[in-house]
């Protein structure tokens, strides 16, 4: 009986995490609100803030697709274990970078703006970080996972700078003179 209840709860939870087309905006609005609330909570240490924020964003990003795009055509030349290794390292790198950015947070407001659907399987969510004297446009790029109704983020664009495009260029330049193993080590 208990096992069954746990099983049902698990199923319910997993369906709660999946982002579907109809609820991308509301889902992102609530996630951003949650994160902003955690960031503004002065009684929390930076570490505990990170711990609380991590589960909120974890299911949003498709790290494997991000890793694949960032490597470009080198990806296909790798063995599946190398791909896996790289994905793990890259995921960690992206997460570290994201959490480091959170350290810069002071009192900015984040406003979710409009959705844009450039293709049947792409949705861009436009948002704006409003600071005291400057604001930045941030676009979350979602794609539709094949044979499902899930949408996941494959790139984030900050004031016109695509994070994955930037890594793609960096990795390609790096691999011109150095080996894949050296790239893994430097991440």
């Amino acid at each position, binding site marked *: 009986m208990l096992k069954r209840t746990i099983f049902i709860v698990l199923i319910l939870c997993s369906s709660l995490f999946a982002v579907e087309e109809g609820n991308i905006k509301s889902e992102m609005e609530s996630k951003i609100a949650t994160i902003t609330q955690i960031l503004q909570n002065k009684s929390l240490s930076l570490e505990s803030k990170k711990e609380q924020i991590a589960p909120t964003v974890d299911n949003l990003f498709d790290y494997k697709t991000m890793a694949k795009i960032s490597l*470009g055509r080198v990806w296909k030349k790798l063995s599946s274990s190398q791909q896996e290794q790289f994905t793990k390292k890259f995921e960690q790198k992206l997460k570290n970078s994201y959490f480091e950015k959170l350290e810069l947070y002071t009192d900015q407001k984040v406003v979710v703006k409009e959705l844009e659907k450039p293709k049947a399987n792409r949705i861009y969510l436009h948002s704006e970080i409003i600071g005291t*004297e400057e604001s930045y446009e941030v676009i979350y790029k979602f794609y539709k996972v094949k044979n499902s109704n899930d949408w996941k983020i494959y790139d984030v664009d900050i004031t016109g700078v*695509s994070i994955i495009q930037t890594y793609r260029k960096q990795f390609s330049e790096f691999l011109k003179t150095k080996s894949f193993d050296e790239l893994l080590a430097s991440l």
Partner: protein
Amino acid sequence: MRYLSLIFILFFLMTGCSSKNISTPHTKKNIIATEQNSTQTSEDDEFDDEFDDETKEVFDPLEGYNRVMTNINDKIYLYAFNPISKGYAFVIPKPVRVGVSNAFENLKFPIRFVNNILQLKFDHSIKELGRFMVNSTVGVLGLFDVATKAGIKRYDEDFGQTLGYWGVGSGFHIVLPFLGPSNLRDTIGLAVDTAISPRTHSGLEYQIPKNNLESLGYASLYYTNKNSLHLGEYENLKKDALDVYTFFRDAYEQKRAKEILE
């Protein structure tokens, strides 16, 4: 003396242009080769056409100089500019610094106004005029950005963007001393914007500084104040880079390409 160095820089830039022509056949060949590659792989990878070909060579004739200047700027920033900005931020309360920032942004009005007109964005230039009038009066000489609070947003345009709007390409990348990443088009743009800016001295009647020394003073205050509101950002971003020079170069060019489209 200033004009002499400007002419020297322009001459230097032009010789850069002509060397571009010489190397074109080579880079073209590269592009054709990579295009053939990408048509082969594009069928099984739908994301590829959304991202730039990562193997495409960036035309970067000043790379050697740019790398040295990136390094110098980095040291100037970390060991001189940043400590000064931190000290400044410690002494001057944030609301005052935001006010100073607002006042400087308000002074940039002629640049935004002219460049919006030059890009035929007349509605934006009219809004800019409205913003300037409101912020200069109700906003006490621009110290308070009442216009933004009232929902009239700022339309940032500069002469580099105007050139881009009319189809001028970015040219090659140039890292400017103190100012950081730029390119041929934006460096020319910056020279033009600086000439009409109210906080520099180039002989126009509305300009506040009466000589170059005062002009330098205003520039120092402007950049120190601005940096005091963005402390830690450069160091934080730098951590994401495998190669600091190409990282900031590519980020800059991506950002400018987007600003021109807007």
